[in-house]
């Protein structure tokens, strides 16, 4: 398992002038014996084990952050990809739907356009299209339908 984060090529192109992150200085290793280091390592691993964590009920300060297992990663990625396959909605299509939704909703309420989150979610046997929209404030005007009826 590799702990490198994948480099996104787009970011590199957009910000070529960005300086490389400074390499943190390697702290001088404490003069502990190898055996003692092994024991400390073992203690950390054991305290990170899922058997112990539920007993304490709170995050263990010694626990290393556990990476998602390959199995879980495969399952999550697969479920996402299948939702797009099954609905035949590509990320580009969702993007254009998002843009149109912003346009329509903006007629009625002022929304934070950058915060509109549109995604597919699996709910047991059905696939749901979930939109999370943060409303800044309502626009004080009657919807066009009602004004038409009143007039």
């Amino acid at each position, binding site marked *: *398992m590799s*702990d490198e984060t994948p480099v996104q090529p787009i970011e590199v192109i957009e910000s070529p002038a960005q300086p490389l992150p400074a390499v943190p200085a390697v702290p001088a290793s404490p003069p502990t014996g190898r055996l003692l280091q092994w024991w400390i390592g*073992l203690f*950390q*691993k*054991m*305290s*990170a*084990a*899922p*058997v112990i964590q539920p007993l304490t009920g709170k995050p263990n300060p010694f*626990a*290393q952050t*556990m*990476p998602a*297992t*390959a*199995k*879980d990663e*495969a*399952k999550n*990625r*697969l*479920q996402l*990809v*299948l939702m797009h*396959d*099954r609905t035949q909605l590509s990320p580009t299509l969702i993007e254009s739907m998002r843009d149109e939704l912003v346009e329509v909703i903006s007629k009625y309420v002022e929304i934070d356009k950058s915060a509109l989150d549109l995604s597919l979610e699996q709910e047991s*046997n059905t696939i749901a299209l979930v939109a999370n929209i943060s409303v800044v404030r309502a626009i004080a005007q009657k919807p066009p339908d009602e004004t038409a009826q009143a007039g």
Partner: protein
Amino acid sequence: MATKTEGRVIVVTSGKGGVGKTTSTANIGAGLARLGFKVVLIDTDIGLRNLDILMGLENRIVYNIVDVVEERCKLTQALVKDKRMPNLCLLPAAQTRDKSALTPEQMIQVVGELKQEHDYILIDSPAGIEQGFQNAVAAASEAIVVATPEMSSVRDADRIIGLLETKEEIKHYKLVLNRVRPDMIKTNDMMDVDDVLEILSIKLLGIIPEDQDIIVSTNRGEPVVLRDGDKVPRATLAYRNIAARISGQDVPFLDLDTPVHWMDKVKSFLKLGGAS
């Protein structure tokens, strides 16, 4: 033996190549023949035939399915009898033609004839979702979807299931999960059987463990399901069970967990939480 009614027509398909369609067709077919049923295997992978190799019958082919539909021979002349069992035979694919040499209508006609004389007709589908797949599915009323617990295979299986659902003739389909590795499932490095079943929402027909004996069997041209003796490979048992389930027997699924040596238990405990 089944009473003399029309045979059951089952297509073995997967979408993705290399997941074990042909191996499964050969072994399930031989497994059903082993139970005494009259079985015919049809290879529809025209241009890339391989079922003959797996059955060890590559040297006995005279005519093939394209010769039959183009009326260069009779159907019975093209059927290759198995070396080991008289109630098992193969209708080979043409090697020098392509998928367009066969149409779904022709498949329905050939299978319709074979149904009269056989209990089971197993159709080995080529990879992909194009004409070869359409040919293979055309005459079938049941389907076996073969997949491995890998992302690309499961994704393609999902696509195939979607296509099978649009076919009215396909009454039901079940999953054979191939190349399952209990050691990797135990370490959470591979999706387990339940994960795949949940994702695909499909019923399970059988689980085949990854087994070196399958390669050995292919090399010898003898389906692994036909191994005999006190200590047979687990893949042999797995395929025997699938054949029995198809024939209507209620057989529990294999427990793939092997007894673990106590030292391995200690090792895996010490590894817990470590990012390896």
